[in-house]
């Protein structure tokens, strides 16, 4: 579950201490854009020590510098032995980029006696080429767990202008969701950067991308987490609706019936699947255990 991925700079000790208190499903420690060129080394080292010291109550993602910089290997050398859950590569163009990073991670895993393939990949798609190659990228490695859209750099690469309505990245969003779904991995949306305190605007954009099929949205400010989590979480009413259907389906199965009816109405196969997913999601988020 990645409803929210909260960014924090890898260079700030105070942030690293408190990253997991805001309720984000994942935190992204950033070694890339949030870190000045002159501090790439110290941020990477600080992140390594933070990973040794803290075991966060959520998924840990490390965003590394891109293949076009001299830093990406050093980033991986420092953090892979500390067993992050996920690495987020940046400025990806093709599936080969993913294979290059995969191979390097495998080398480090071997050298440290780690389980091969344990560290997952969730690349940032922020170039026009990466959107065109989205499905190949999504299936380039068994480590792949998701695709994450980076709107700012993508718009730059497309020579587009970022708009609040998102016309500029509408195609990229759709293409990314389709590719991720086809590959059976997560689709994650770009953060809301217009005004970090505008929770109404954030909610509106989040509802839109949820409807488009995204699993979640990155957050660049702790105050955004709860807004996004709420939208990507089933409500209690929705859960109760889904639970009735799941129970109906279970009963029908037990009685060997081919048709599921709830409250006298027939329920289609896809609806049962949606209901099962909703029940599982709600119970995971709210810690509900059904007997």
């Amino acid at each position: 579950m990645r409803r929210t991925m909260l960014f924090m700079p890898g260079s700030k000790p105070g942030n690293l201490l408190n990253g997991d208190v805001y309720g984000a499903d994942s935190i992204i420690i950033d070694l890339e854009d949030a870190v000045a060129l002159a501090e790439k080394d110290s941020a990477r080292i600080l992140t390594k020590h933070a990973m040794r010291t803290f075991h966060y109550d959520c998924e840990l993602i490390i965003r590394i510098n891109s293949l076009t910089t001299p830093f990406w290997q050093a980033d991986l050398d420092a953090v892979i032995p500390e067993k992050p859950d996920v690495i987020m590569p940046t400025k990806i163009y093709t599936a080969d980029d993913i294979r290059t990073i995969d191979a390097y991670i495998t080398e480090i895993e071997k050298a440290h006696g780690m389980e091969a393939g344990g560290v997952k990949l969730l690349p940032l798609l922020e170039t026009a080429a990466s959107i065109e190659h989205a499905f190949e990228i999504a299936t380039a490695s068994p480590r792949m767990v998701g695709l994450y859209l980076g709107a700012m750099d993508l718009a730059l690469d497309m020579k587009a202008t970022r708009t609040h309505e998102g016309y500029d990245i509408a195609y990229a969003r759709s293409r990314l969701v389709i590719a991720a779904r086809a590959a059976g991995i997560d689709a994650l949306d770009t953060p809301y950067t217009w005004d970090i305190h505008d929770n109404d605007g954030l909610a509106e954009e989040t509802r839109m991308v949820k409807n488009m099929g995204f699993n979640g949205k990155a957050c660049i400010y702790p105050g955004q987490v709860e807004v996004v989590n709420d939208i990507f979480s089933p409500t209690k009413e929705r859960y109760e609706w889904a639970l009735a259907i799941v129970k109906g389906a279970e009963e029908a199965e037990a009685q060997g019936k081919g048709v599921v009816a709830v409250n006298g109405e027939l329920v289609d196969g896809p609806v049962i699947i949606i209901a099962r997913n909703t029940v599982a999601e709600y119970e995971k988020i709210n810690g509900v255990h059904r007997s």
Partner: protein
Amino acid sequence: MKGKLVASIEEAIRLCGLKDGMTVSFHHHLRDGDQVLPMVMAKIEELGFHDITVSASSIHGSHGCLADMIKSKVVTGIDTNFIHKCVGTTISEGYLETPAIFRTHGNRPHALATGEAHIDIAFIAASAADCQGNMNGVDGPSAFGPMGYAFADAQFADKVVVITDYLVDYPLTPISIDERYVDYVVKVDSIGDTSGIASGITTISKDPIGLKIAKTAVQVFENSGYFEDGFVYQTGGGRTSLATTKFLKEAMDRRGVHGACILGGINGLFIDLLEQGYFNKIVDTQCFDLKAVESLKNDVRHQEIACGHYADMCAKSCVAAHLTTVMLGATEIDTEFNVNIHTDSNGLIMGGSGGHTDIAYGAKLTVIVTPLLRQRRAAVLDRVGTKSTMGDTIDVLVTQRGIAVNPKHQGLRERLLDAGLPVKDIHELRKMARDLTGEPKPVAFTDKVVAKVYGYDGKLNDVIYQSKG
């Protein structure tokens, strides 16, 4: 009409018959902008007096002159509810001749009424006064709001001198404290800088940790069983405490709950809640910003009260005793829920109860909001440096990594757990803090007592020892 006007502070001091060994008093409504205490004390020093006890409702950042006067024995006693570190450090270093007396806002007027504490001459800053000594704090260029802390001084001091920079024709209206108590009136150029009233604590925190804690604190109130129409609310002056107002408003919208009254310590955030109809009334001893001052002057729903009416727990009743909930800060809190707001991690005096101890006792639900640690200083400890507010008056601790409920409230604990709030044992929070900071080396003290800390009931809560430095 000349009335009680005298030419200068010096003349007022002479006419009042100040002698070595006497007690003079001041209020702190101008907070960090106050110039009356420094002005009067400079004159007392210049006239060669010694062995003076300063009884001030609080000692703030603009009162640093007292540190030197303590060293030169002009001042040998302090009786107050709060001491800023600019004077506190000097006291902790052992320079004050007699132990400083810390009271609470509510108990100070009680002690004055019973004679337990005595003032020989009260010097009362008023933003407006007439020549007979009728005074208020809402008119004039240095308006600071209510005169809550000065009522008891006016009532119980042997002599009362009003100091103002805005003299109006008799009679002044409205009147906060009236002429019956006043001996002399002095007009000066300025009583202080009103921009210092805010003392930097009246804007909502942008610190995400503070906001997270404030939000959780409001969720605690919302699910405590006390969140219902007619509740009475107060927050401390810290940023995180104040940030609860933002989330309180959201909770009131969500649940359609309406409040009776805000008590304070009032700033513009509370004025918004009054004006937007979230609460019926504001009851006010002290303004924290100029928006609050404006409101007190213009809105009849915003009522000035005397400090004893605010929080004297020994009176037949007081407003703080009717509080539903209060959100308060803490420098340190220990596993018995005792709170320290007097001394820093080095054991040096840098604060005081103010009303903390009174309202913690008065409120049905007292919530302490604090981060688990500030830099490397743990806020949750095995034992606090100074017991300012006793643990049996604290109900809930809220940190960014969880909530602890005082074990005497099992029912409350269950309600918060049922609401899905992250309730933990306070020892667990203590362990988290210690795992992060490591075990500190204890700070060293001599066996000389430099201050005594009294509670809402006038009983001794703790003493503070001289720092070994």
